[in-house]
């Protein structure tokens, strides 16, 4: 057994058989790319703006295709590893719709469409009744309204699920056909309302592959938000520890005060929990395993509710200013915990299943998470 030094030396981490080489390379290039985005670009995104340079780099690196199969133009990296890109984007508060574009391309290619190069997002993010499809002439008419569509105003393609006679269809929409009302998320990033009443050709509409419906689409989005939250929370911990070691009061860094150390330990525990949730969500993404994603999103949301206040408390007044970068992360975290289903939404689903399992079935219900070939 090795001596206990922390953090674990890089060569030891590498020795543990956790990830493939391609995934490691992808992560490295994402870290380089997003790490180079300056605070000015982040501020622009928080005012609803767009960083074309950032998007172009993301697209050139091929990240939007990370969930697409190798045949469809992807890297052939397991989704549980590709989701790491989203965590890294969260860590850097990347001012691009990476999670949304990765999910949109996955849905497009699974339905038989080609993936898109331009920014893409998905709709609806809540509810199942947003869009309906009717046959009209030789094509289709889509009608409906979706709110809270992330980054919609900057997207070229909106990949939507629409209902036709009780069955879900995947629709590839050109954003310009939607009437768009600009709105902002809690973090200030675009979260627009779309009203659509338009004719579509048969080329734009495909039956959704069996496992995709509005509930699994919401779960897929939730899994990606958990990964982003894990990344952003890691950054929040790092910023807060660094600040506590630098800020001197009463003649010593505030991080030397036991009261502050104990608070930071609580913050670190929540970061670990959110990381665990992200690992669960990552493993559950490919199979769209709703209970696992529900547990992950509910726990990650709670982690934010405990951790963000500690980060702000330790940072004091400077962390409450627009000038300080802490809010790039905390405001996104507060927005993300609500998007694609809040703690309340996912806990209700999970609780209903646990109650249905009953007292004797409760423990088997818990151990089914992460079990091989789970039959749910």
């Amino acid at each position, binding site marked *: 057994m090795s001596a206990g030094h922390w953090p674990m030396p890089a060569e030891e981490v590498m020795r543990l058989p*956790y990830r493939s080489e391609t995934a490691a390379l992808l992560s490295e290039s994402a870290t380089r790319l997003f790490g180079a985005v300056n605070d000015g670009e982040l501020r622009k995104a928080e005012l609803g703006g767009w960083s074309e340079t950032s998007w172009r780099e993301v697209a050139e690196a091929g990240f939007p295709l990370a969930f697409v199969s190798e045949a469809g133009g992807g890297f052939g990296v397991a989704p549980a590893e590709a989701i790491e890109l989203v965590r890294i984007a969260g860590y850097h508060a990347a001012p691009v719709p990476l999670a949304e574009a990765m999910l949109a391309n996955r849905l497009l290619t699974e339905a038989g469409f080609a993936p898109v190069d331009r920014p893409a997002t998905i709709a609806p993010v809540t509810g199942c009744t947003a869009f309906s499809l009717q046959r009209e002439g030789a094509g289709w008419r889509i009608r409906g309204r979706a709110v809270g569509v992330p980054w919609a105003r900057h997207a070229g393609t909106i990949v939507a699920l629409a209902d036709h006679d009780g069955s879900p269809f995947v629709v590839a929409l050109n954003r310009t056909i939607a009437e768009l009302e600009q709105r902002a998320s809690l973090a200030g990033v675009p979260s627009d309302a779309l009203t659509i009443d338009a004719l579509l050709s048969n080329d734009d509409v495909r039956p959704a592959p069996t496992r995709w419906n509005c509930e699994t689409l919401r779960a897929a989005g939730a899994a990606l938000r958990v990964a982003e939250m894990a990344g952003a929370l890691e950054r929040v911990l790092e910023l807060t520890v660094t600040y506590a070691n630098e800020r001197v009061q009463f003649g010593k860094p505030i991080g030397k005060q036991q009261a502050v150390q*104990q608070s930071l330990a*609580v913050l670190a525990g929540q970061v670990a929990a959110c990381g665990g949730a992200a690992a*669960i969500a990552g493993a559950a993404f490919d199979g769209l395993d709703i209970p696992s994603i529900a547990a992950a999103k509910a726990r990650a949301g709670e982690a934010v509710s405990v951790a963000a206040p500690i980060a702000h408390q330790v940072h004091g007044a400077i962390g409450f200013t627009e000038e300080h970068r802490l809010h790039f992360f905390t405001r996104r975290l507060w927005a993300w915990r609500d998007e694609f289903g809040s703690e309340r939404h996912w806990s209700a689903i999970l609780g209903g299943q646990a*109650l249905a399992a009953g007292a*004797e079935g409760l423990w088997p219900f818990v*151990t089914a998470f992460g079990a*091989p070939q789970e039959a749910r």
Partner: protein
Amino acid sequence: MTYFTFPNAPPLPEAEKLRGEVRAFLAEELRNVPAHVRAASWSGFDAQFSRRMGERGWIGMTWPKQYGGHERSSLERYVVLEEMLAVGAPVAAHWIADRQSGPLLLRFGTEEQRQNVLPKIAAGELFCCIGMSEPDSGSDLAAVRTRAEPVDGGFRVNGTKLWTTYGHRAHYMLLFCRTSGGPADRHKGTSQLLVDLTLPGITIRPIADLSGAKHFNEVVFENVFVPGSALIGEEGNGWHQVTSELAYERSGPERFLSSFVLFAELIRVLQRNPSDHATIAVGRLISHFVVLRQLSRGVAWLLQNGENPALEAAVVKDLGALVEQEIPDVVRSLVEIDPDSEQTRELARTLHYIVQAAPSFSLRGGTREILRGIIARGLGLR
């Protein structure tokens, strides 16, 4: 910057097969044991039960076969542990020996100690207790005052150990003591001895806990002669050894499942007609258990890979104790307990047990404050 590493423990089909065997065994063993008794979980002592566990090969699972072990993986052992805890099997008799005394002897013990003690532990016949805390040395373990003076052929031991869980039922204590120097030397001059508790000069007095239950003890050593062959590892290396023992102590699923039997009883009462509020509260707890289990299995996997997950174990134990301690209040917020009602009587009795046991969840195995200090050190703050 990565402060800690929680790997994804891989799912193991053979572990799931084992799970089925353990469940069948427990269903039979615990058929008529009510929830409020099972709630004691790893505080429940039953020597016969431990012997039956040993017969099935579920103690010392990861140890080499030459010492009575079974050479199975940490994750298989993990399955046995969590299945025991989830239903509240009375595992206290062998728990400490299986968890930390055995691994400590495997790592640091003499060949004679290993051959004499490990096979009996694995058979569920020999029980150990921890000899760390003292009247003036709790969280501050380096303040240890119990002395083992080197004498001809061994040591003469004087001092007092406290809060010794099931010391009155154990055969051996793994005694942490000072063999040279004084308290000012702190970590230096400490050692560990494998002490046969039947030696003359040892007095064991039970101490009742706040509920009146007697599981922990005061153990007094008065001029006890301990042979030199009882020394574990090197004289003076006690601090290094005892801290590695603590990593074993903190890493398991017993650090978040202490109230699980109560949670199951809550489900039994709620399931007929749960409110939205209750359903959400239950789902929230499930999310905690699922994530704690993910992290805790990661710790087991680190152990499997020969790593020292002291920091990760502290994180899991700190998070786990919060959930364990919160569950009684979740129960109280969701159910109107009527001691006269058939429907809530067993829930009430289980709740009463857990309410009184809960303070210990963030004391035993390292207090919350000590754990958070370890985490703060891992963050580079100390």
